């Protein structure tokens, strides 16, 4: 754990207490069973907004607390531990696009509403099943955007879309020229196929050519923070299980083969934590975030992937049952692994940025 300020510690503890007391995995199970398109509980999201979590990276002038990305990452990590579902990450990433690339009018129009939780915003970039921002065909002509975006997170509840078009990022409000088709993935969260057909689009013009990349870095690092929470929880749950499960007259935790596997996973998760925290801190510092973001997401992908598999394997048969929670973590982890770049994508990017 990075060395935290007093405010950060308080924020983290508040998120931890709320998630474990008010939004444990049983709460997620209810949402999952309800099988709604939005994939979260609006009342819970309103509570999160009241606690200020929707405005952590938004400046005070626009209704936020301006606590920064490491702080937001702490909240997302804690929520990830109990699978507490919300559009906080998607909205924060969309807000960051407006912060980095919007004019005053755009900031005034949207940031206070995102900070208050009244407006859910999201980022729409990819047009296929794999993250690939080099292939964008959505086009804007005469202020109207047309094109299709695949698997847009929180697309089912978003009122505002930050859409990547061939010549930059645009703000598009839900409604005229925007249609939403639910894509029901294994994680039971909101993923939508978005069709924009002559939707009024307002360009984010002041962010420069690297705006999309900077925003995607933020999206990748926040996904990694959620994965860190999930992986840490998967590890703790597995450890607790091994300490109480008896086979052959022995507690499983006494078997050296399992001890060494857990020691290795412990090491992996510590490296994952370092990479994720470094990614969040790099965003807070400003400047070039590319390598740090790719490191965070690639490491989160690798370790999250392994830990979610080991979670099932080390639990044995019970891990395979829907009655147990392990499956939630495996399924959400795999979705997050694909979002904003899989391991190969970020390795390739890291190598390119390193000049080889």
């Amino acid at each position, binding site marked *: *754990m*990075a*060395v935290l300020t007093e405010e950060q510690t308080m924020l983290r503890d508040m998120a931890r207490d709320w998630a474990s007391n008010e939004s444990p995995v049983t709460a997620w199970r209810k949402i999952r069973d309800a099988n709604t398109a939005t994939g979260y509980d609006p009342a819970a999201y309103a509570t999160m907004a009241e606690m200020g979590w929707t405005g952590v990276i938004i400046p005070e002038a626009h209704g936020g607390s301006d606590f920064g990305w490491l702080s937001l990452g702490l909240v997302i990590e804690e929520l990830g531990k109990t699978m507490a579902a919300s559009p906080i990450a998607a909205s924060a990433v969309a807000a960051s696009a407006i912060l980095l690339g919007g004019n005053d009018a755009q900031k005034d129009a949207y940031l206070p509403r995102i900070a208050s939780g009244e407006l859910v915003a999201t980022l729409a970039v990819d047009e296929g099943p794999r993250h690939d921002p080099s292939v964008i065909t959505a086009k804007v002509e005469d202020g109207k955007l047309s094109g299709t975006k695949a698997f847009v997170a929180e697309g089912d509840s978003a009122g505002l879309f930050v859409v990547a078009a061939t010549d930059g990022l645009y703000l598009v409000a839900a409604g005229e020229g925007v249609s939403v088709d639910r894509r029901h993935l294994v994680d039971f969260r909101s993923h939508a196929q978005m069709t924009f057909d002559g939707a009024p689009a307002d360009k984010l013009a002041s962010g420069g050519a690297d705006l999309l990349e900077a925003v995607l870095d933020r999206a990748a690092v926040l996904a990694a923070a959620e994965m860190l929470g999930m992986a840490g929880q998967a590890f703790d749950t597995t*450890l607790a299980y*091994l*300490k109480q499960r008896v086979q052959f007259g*022995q*507690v499983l*935790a*006494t078997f*050296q083969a*399992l*001890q*060494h596997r*857990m*020691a*290795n996973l*412990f*090491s992996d998760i*510590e*490296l*994952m*934590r*370092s*990479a994720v*925290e*470094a990614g969040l801190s790099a965003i807070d510092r400003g400047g070039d975030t590319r390598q740090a973001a*790719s*490191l965070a997401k*690639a*490491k989160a992908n690798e370790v999250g992937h392994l830990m979610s598999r080991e979670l099932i394997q080390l639990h044995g048969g019970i891990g395979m049952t829907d009655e147990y929670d392990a499956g939630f973590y495996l399924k959400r982890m795999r979705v997050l692994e694909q979002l904003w770049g899989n391991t*190969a994508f970020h*390795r*390739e990017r*890291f*190598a*390119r940025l*390193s*000049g*080889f």
Partner: protein
Amino acid sequence: MATLAEPETGADSLEAFRAEVREWLAANFPASLKGKDNSMSAVEGPTQEAPEQAAWRKAMGEKGWGVPTWPAEYGGGGLSRAQAKVLQEEMARAGAWNPIGGMGVMMFGPTLLEYGNEAQKREHIPAIAKGEVRWCQGYSEPNAGSDLANLQTFAEDKGDHYLVNGQKTWTSGGQWAHKCFAIVRTDKTQKQGGITFLLIDMDSPGVEVKPIQMISGMSPFCETFFTNVKVPKENRVGEEGQGWTIGKRLLQHERTNLSGGGSAFRVSGPSLADIAKKYVGADDQGRVADPDLRARIAKFEMDWRAFLLTAMRVQAESKAVGGVSEVSSILKTVGTKLGQERAELMIEIQGLQGLGWEGEGFTPQEIQGVRAWLFGKATTIYGGSTEIQNNVIAKRILGMLDHQ
């Protein structure tokens, strides 16, 4: 004991100290030595020093800066941690390195400062600080490796001295050490409680050393035999039977040095990617021509970055809580594994050119790379093998129980 005022470490005084260091380095570090540190020197043993190398070692030794944070009254630098960091930074900037090293510095000195009596500290610490006396470690035995407390070398109480009989192995640098810090058995009826910490002169009658040839072709380790070796009682550190406690403390220093905190993982010279471009070639976009190799280099570099970030995090956390972060326990296992991965990649990148043993057709870098690759296999075995470290992590940190 003289007490030292805590050196001032405010920003102003640090900058003044930095200026002092720069000036001193300019006056004392020979420009001809710039960047000529040999990362394998610790295991290759003492070589004939060129006059300027000897002068550099002497200058650093007299200044006490080879052991910058040790107390000045015993020949150390007496610097604060902040000042030591400045010293390190300035040395790196000047292309200088620390010529004072070895086990006396890494492990024995800090342990003796904690557990030794005044006379022992006065006798041994200054000589270590000056790099004049080389120490070796008498710990492992043929049947006491990972199970170290099983050691059998026996020290019989003869009144004013002990009579030591037995065999040690993996004595690093035993053939060129002046002295040995050893743990020996003084009581056969109890395991850990029967162990005592002794300092043994390597030129005592009855000490015999046989270097062991390793797969790297080097002989950095020895078998050491003790036959009726007389060790005066004043060479016992701590009380009789306290050797296990002192010995374990020393191993903590060893682990710290073998992990990210020390210089053991310093990577210098060209990057793997640059080496790959040279040996494998690059495509028209400047990428390493073999995409699979390129991806694996990228994976390694990212893991390495995550490891360094973790080492930095451990330092920051330890400083913040005023103790050792429990995460530090993973640094040795992860760092040594990555070090081996890097060496394997390096060999693979170079093809057969990377497997030269000696003679014509190979550059010194290629030969050194091969020796380093082979020697590096020891890093996951010595200082507590990866398996032992994993036991420690599982039991002490994760609370996974012992077999009933």
